């Protein structure tokens, strides 16, 4: 977690940051390569290269270019967005345990998607991403508004987020049992968070928005560091903290909601990525945000690759794998975080 002490990290840490970024980028490239190479169908390396480079010889155009490439890229993109979103939310709430899931965005998106599926069954397949984004933003805003109105501290804000999430989940349960028959499946696949069937259209539908928001967040990241100087010095430097924080929060919520809209509820990435990033490069946002994005991309794309390579042709949803990995991580975090000073009260 970013606090004043980690801000004044020594020069050693500052030197480390570029090295870490390079290493993570390499790591991401390996995951992307695995994403192209692994799947239900074995594609020999030669065929893979032929296809990618457009050479003559045996090729697998759809499997590599039509399925694995967009899917892996989408996994990396949404993972990066979730990681970045988590870093922003944790930082703004000054709570190392916050994440898009904890502040109710995931459940809000899930509720909106199910509501949309049952109110407009014919348009549901196309409207899912929009419904999810709207639901996530609404749930996030509700939490934030309540927090603002009641002037809550960070710990209680987290609790409000959890509570709003519970209300949404109750709605999800209600819709699932009242509106579906014994063989319902489409909403359940989405609820567990899966990149199954995602292609270029899905990628292009969110890539511009996510890319723009991520760029904006990274540009603003140095201003995030300034808020730790305290309000007066920040103001002297021309930073209007309230506005900046508000804008960043909107960006954070949008990043998570749009990602959830297109890939479903892939949980815990927004929690894990910023923590791993903080251990690697410390708490300065200029270093933390890009690192968290890279870690998130690796986690999400990696979970997708693992899910389709483990027991083909059955696919295990990426969301199940991130939860199985993320929940113990969260537990470990809770166990270790409290030993350090500045833990949330």
């Amino acid at each position, binding site marked *: 977690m970013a606090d004043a002490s980690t801000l004044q990290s020594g020069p050693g840490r500052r030197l480390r940051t570029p090295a870490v970024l390079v290493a993570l980028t390499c790591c991401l490239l390996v995951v992307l390569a695995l994403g192209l190479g692994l799947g239900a169908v074995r594609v020999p390396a030669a065929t893979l290269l032929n296809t990618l480079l457009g050479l003559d010889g045996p090729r697998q155009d759809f499997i590599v270019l039509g399925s694995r490439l967009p899917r892996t890229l989408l996994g990396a993109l949404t993972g990066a967005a979730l990681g970045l979103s988590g870093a922003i939310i944790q930082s703004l709430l000054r709570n190392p345990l916050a994440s898009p899931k904890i502040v109710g965005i995931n459940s809000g998106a899930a509720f909106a998607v199910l509501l949309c599926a049952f109110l407009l069954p014919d348009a549901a397949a196309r409207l899912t991403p929009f419904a999810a984004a709207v639901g996530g933003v609404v749930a996030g805003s509700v939490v934030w508004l309540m927090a603002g109105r*009641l002037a809550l501290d960070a710990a209680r804000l987290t609790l409000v987020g*959890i509570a709003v999430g519970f209300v949404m989940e109750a709605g999800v349960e209600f819709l699932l049992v009242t509106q579906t028959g014994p063989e319902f499946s489409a909403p359940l696949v989405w609820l567990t968070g899966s990149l199954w069937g995602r292609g270029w259209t899905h990628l292009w539908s969110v890539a511009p928005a996510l890319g723009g928001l991520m760029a904006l967040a990274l540009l603003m990241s140095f201003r995030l560091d300034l808020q730790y100087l305290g309000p007066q010095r920040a103001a002297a430097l021309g930073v209007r903290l309230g506005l900046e924080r508000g804008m960043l929060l909107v960006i954070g919520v949008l990043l998570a909601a749009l990602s959830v809209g297109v890939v479903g509820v892939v*949980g815990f990435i927004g929690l894990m990525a910023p923590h791993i990033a903080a251990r690697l490069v410390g708490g300065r946002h200029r270093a933390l945000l890009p690192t968290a994005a890279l870690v998130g991309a690796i986690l999400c794309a990696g979970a997708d690759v693992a899910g389709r390579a483990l027991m083909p042709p059955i696919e295990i949803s990426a969301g199940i794998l991130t939860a199985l990995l993320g929940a113990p991580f969260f537990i470990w975090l*809770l166990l270790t975080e*409290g030993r350090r000073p500045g833990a949330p009260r």
Partner: protein
Amino acid sequence: MRQVLAQDRPLGEGAAVLRRAALPCLALLVVLGGCALSLATGGRSDVGLADLSGLFAGSGATLAEQTMRDIRLPRTLCAVFLGVNLGLAGLILQAVTRNALAAPGLLGINQGAALGIVLGLIVPALAGVPQSLLAVVFGLLAVAATFAISGAFSGRIESLRLILGGIAVGALGFAAVRLGYTLEDDLARQVVRWTVGDIGGVRMPEALRLGATALLGILAAFGLAQRLNLMALGQAASHGLGADPMRTLMLGAGVASVMTGVCVSVAGPIAFAGLVVPHLAKALAGADHRRLVLVTATLGAGLMAWADAGSKLWPGFSEIPVGVIVSIIGAPWFLAIVLTRRASSHG
């Protein structure tokens, strides 16, 4: 800190007597009303409360009387005992953690118990183990994990970490449950069964199992009541007065896990009942656990009886599982507690 013990207001003697008598009467009326509504509704329109007359008629009972005796009564009893068990489990957990937000569902016990049962269905080696036992054992493991996370074993429970720990443990349990269903497409339709509580198919043996647990639970809660009161005074005070807080914590968590585990094995996880009921009870009856035990049990019974009636009265042919009804009531309640409780109202 809330008032240590409820003190009688300086009312006139008559008014005080009236107040003491009115509350139990009202609570009893609520329970009886819920039970009556629950018993009076079901699939058949020709079965009504009057058919309770055949309760002891043996094989001579009419069809309607048999329906009442063999199907409706066990179900309503199950609802009532679920309410007692979950309410008391919540009461005990709130006392031993000194946290108003503690409840079986929020500390991961429900999800742990559900995971135990699903493992019993999937893992061949566990096939012979009774479901209740698996549910209790995994529920205990879950609450132990949550307590460890919250720092309870080192003496100081942090409120937020307790809830977050419970959520983490619960998320892990449900993720594992979901994995089981992904691998087995046929089981997907049952996913609701083990993530939402339902008592649509219970019969007398289940009701008796829950009833016995409820009875033992009430006795255990009475036994613990004094210790629970001391916990409210704080760890040090509790220690000074001869009750080791750590032992209270262990005992309380154990009792709560057994009660919850048996409930999950019968009905699946029912969230929020254990949260809402103790809160209502404290609002009505103050903070003395010797009194709270009975009030909580009564209110729990009432809430679940009404929820069960609601699940049967829901418009449409199919019922809604009772767990969904409780969640719809309980989740906003949780939000309300979080929003209204004063920041300093817990240890």
